[in-house]
């Protein structure tokens, strides 16, 4: 009984250890949850905006990194015709867009209807393969046909010890942006 008990305990420990090893990467996987609002606009001629969502970091000894997380444009046109207006996402186009070959799986997609769109990115998985420590900025840029253009910036520091929320709201073309950082 004594021996059996020892055995059971040790098995239990091993099982715990294994399950912890398996579970820990999942539990501690850092992630970014971004809620992006495409505002409902009452205008005579409305077209869903082109949207770019990207991260910039000045960390790692002034090494500037730029990472596009999402870009929404007209993907239904023949011969990638919808890419013609990507340059109207002016800031993103200069910072990263013109260096990319679209479409990119998990990054590019069709334009979205008005409302809140939730995006989740796990650190270490494309497109959020890395996030340097230090000061970062989340950018959300929207540009609308026969409409305007706006860029909203959400500055934050990485890493975080506990889940942290940052919010910003645009004034014309971009709605509410909520960024949740999970350690």
């Amino acid at each position, binding site marked *: 009984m004594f021996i059996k008990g020892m055995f059971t305990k040790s098995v239990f420990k091993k099982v715990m250890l294994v399950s912890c090893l398996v579970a820990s990467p999942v539990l501690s996987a850092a992630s970014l949850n971004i809620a992006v609002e495409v505002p409902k606009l009452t205008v005579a001629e409305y077209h869903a905006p082109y949207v770019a969502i990207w991260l910039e970091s000045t960390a790692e000894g002034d090494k500037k990194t730029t990472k596009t997380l999402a870009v929404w444009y007209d993907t239904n046109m023949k*011969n*990638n*015709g919808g*890419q*013609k*207006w*990507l*340059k109207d996402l*002016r*800031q993103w*186009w*200069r910072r990263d*867009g*013109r*260096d990319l070959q679209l479409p990119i799986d998990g990054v590019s997609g069709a334009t979205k209807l008005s409302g809140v769109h939730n995006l989740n990115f796990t650190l270490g998985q494309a497109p959020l393969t890395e996030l340097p420590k230090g000061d970062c900025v989340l950018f959300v840029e929207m540009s609308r046909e026969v409409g305007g*253009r706006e860029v909203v910036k959400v500055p934050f520091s990485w890493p975080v010890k506990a889940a942290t929320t940052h919010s910003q709201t645009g004034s014309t073309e971009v709605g509410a942006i909520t960024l949740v950082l999970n350690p």
Partner: protein
Amino acid sequence: MKKIISQLMLVCLAGAAVTAEAHRSWMLPYETIKAGESGWVTFDLASSNDIFQIDHGPGRAEGLTVLTPEGKTEEAQNIFTGKLRTSFDVNLLQQGTYKIFLASGGLSARWEDAEGKRASWPARGEKANPADFATAVPKDAKNLQVTQGSRRVETFVTLGKPSVQALAPTNVGLELVPITHPNDLAISEPAEFKFLMDGKPAVGVKVTVIAGGTRYRNAAEELELATDKNGIVKIQWKAMGAYWLGASYKDEKAQKPAKIRSGSYSATFEVLAE
């Protein structure tokens, strides 16, 4: 009396200055940055006092050259020359930066003949053949002035990511070599360009920068600049929009039989949001 003369002189000088700077040549693209697999851009080529105002004369389309991102030449399409402007289209089929330009240059001579009458060579509208210089210009020409001149009017448009191959200088005449890419100009960022005269840094080039739409301003609000000892000029843009840049240079380092070497240059840029 002395005062009147000096005032008259001043008026004459002012008049001369205006004449010298009148009717600027320009080549205006209606878009400078395109995205996607290809794209058409349309251009106007004209000369006028007000920047980008089509009200004086068309530019000559002869010699109009399109340099592709690979550095190959092709022809502009749908060229039309009216009373006040020349228009044309370029179909951007390759990713990168295109340079569209008009460049000319050569020898010219002015002198006075035995009776004091002014004469010049070559005849208006003709290009000088240097081999004819000895026979065309009399040996006893008075006040002979022989100039090696160059003239360039150009602009730049980019499909996708800006590139630099088409921007390489020819090392003939007055040319602009970008430090800041001409299709990557943003309102918040000063731009730097280097000027070369026959391939060497041109010091003291007079550079004038004017935002388009002078017709709707009481003053041209031009920026008067000069290149530094390295041939570099730095430009701080005032607002987004299309800009005209004019540059002129003159020295006495011409090859014989010319004594004066001169170059004139103009380009159009678009300055956009950050």
